């Protein structure tokens, strides 16, 4: 992210007052916020995460339960999306630890094309493919895992080489000290304006860093930890995270973390100027919100 456009300003911003002067009088202050590699890799990543999530839930549905340790203690999963016959229909029951929830229609049981309730972990609208098919789900999952891995690796290499990482994503000490203030501002939907809005805010930086450095690499490693063929090579890692079934649990939790990240991310994109944000991830251009925007306009 750079204050100074790296390519000539586009026609629409050329018509407005000088781009470089961040004065309140300027009607539009446009910056070139994102370089092409970031934009491209972002959208490849969106595609990968959607396919990986859908196909991952399809794979999970083959045995919709999670365990800790090396093997499956079938009598005592810590998470289970089960189905229980009742007088009228098939009830969906979600177990998390000792707690049980009736989740009929969504988790445990859900309706398929025939309109009837079927026993299945996640519903067909959430899985790729929609119908139960572990083989094709695995094809989708591993193919897009490769694309995700290559894209993610290129992103990390590019981010370090281009100093995107150190300049745009790594918070400095002053920012870290302002976490509390930033948190309150987020809760009050008060978003940075002017000069401050040309950078990511500290919570945003931290969220990106967790997704990029923890959840992304973590979900790949925990996926590999489930491979029996890589077992001999990765045994130290499998043991370190508590065994193969623990790795499967961590893989699932990392996916949950990425889903939560994406929900917050999309929410923030919506509330801080959807079109402006979306454009900045397509063309790179971002209109910096200015403090007294109401007064400045005629």
């Amino acid at each position, binding site marked *: 992210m750079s204050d100074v456009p790296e390519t000539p300003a586009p026609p629409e911003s050329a018509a407005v007052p000088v781009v470089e002067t961040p004065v309140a009088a300027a009607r539009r202050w446009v910056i070139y916020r994102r370089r092409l590699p970031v934009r491209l890799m972002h959208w490849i990543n969106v595609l990968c995460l959607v396919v990986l999530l859908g196909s991952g839930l399809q794979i999970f549905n083959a045995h919709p339960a999670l365990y800790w340790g*090396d093997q499956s203690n079938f009598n005592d999963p810590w998470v289970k999306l089960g189905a229980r016959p009742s007088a009228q229909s098939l009830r969906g029951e979600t177990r998390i630890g000792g707690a049980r929830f009736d989740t009929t229609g969504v988790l445990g049981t859900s309706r398929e094309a025939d309109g009837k309730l079927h026993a299945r972990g996640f519903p067909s609208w959430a899985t790729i493919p*929609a119908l139960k098919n572990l083989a094709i789900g695995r094809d989708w999952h*591993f193919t897009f895992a490769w694309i995700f891995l290559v894209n993610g690796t290129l992103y990390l290499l590019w981010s370090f080489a281009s100093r995107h990482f150190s300049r745009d994503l790594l918070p400095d000490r002053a920012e870290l000290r302002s976490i509390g203030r930033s948190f309150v501002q987020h809760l009050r939907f008060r978003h940075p304006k002017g000069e401050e809005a040309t950078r990511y805010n500290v919570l945003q930086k931290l969220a990106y860093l967790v997704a990029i450095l923890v959840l992304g690499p973590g979900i790949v490693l925990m996926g590999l930890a489930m491979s*029996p063929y*890589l077992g001999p090579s990765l045994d130290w890692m499998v043991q370190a995270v508590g065994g193969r079934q623990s790795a499967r649990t961590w893989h699932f939790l990392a996916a949950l973390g990425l889903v939560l990240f994406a929900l917050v991310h999309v929410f923030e994109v919506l509330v801080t100027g959807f079109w402006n944000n979306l454009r900045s991830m397509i063309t790179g251009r971002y209109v910096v919100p200015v403090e007294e925007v109401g007064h400045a306009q005629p």
Partner: protein
Amino acid sequence: MRSRDRRSFLARAGAVGGAAWLAGCDRLATKSGFAGWLGSSDGLTERVQRSLTARDALAHEYDESAIASSFRANGSINPQAPEYLTLRANDFRDWRLAIGGMVRAPFSLSLDELRALPARTQITRHDCVEGWSAIGKWTGPLLGSILERAGVESAARFVVFRCMDNLGGVGMYYESIALEDAYHPQTILAYNLNDKALPVANGAPLRVRPERMLGYKMAKYLSGIEVVDSLAGIEGGKGGYWEDRGYQWFGGI
């Protein structure tokens, strides 16, 4: 106002697009070209996994205390083929394992002859393609030693396992692995599970244990071992019962 209309239009377009996207995924996967492309990543996965793990590196072996109290059985658990029922009624005394195909000296072994061979015992984790794992103790001779005795021809590439169960009533179960996995120092033909004769549910009288692969590669109810140079002419041509039904041939992840 215009911007609001535009927004609601895009929101609706997004919802429709989302549904079309999911439906599109399903349609794409059934088209042979795209499905072929999706499935082709299995070859890449195999090559990379083989390059990351040494040829003879051992799968983790556990202590006795790790053995599961009851070892889950999956797939065929009670074969009903008449031939199998006859052999089973007689405790497999009339059963023989045939070793043939691209070998210099085909031969066959009875269960007693198999039990008389030098055996390996290993406590390993069984990982099912469905996602669960169970730890068990397996005993039997190395598949490699049996292949050496038969004398594998130099052009051979795969070992095919013929089975006595017809899962779902259509076609007999079969599997295949690469020769290098067949010669792996933990790939045994197991006749014992947890120090007792292999139960019917787990593949009596004999199942193969390529320990670094998923459960569906560990064919049960063996009747024959065939050494081949190509999988193309066998059954569906994809190298296994589940592979013919869309599953990945390299069951290493």
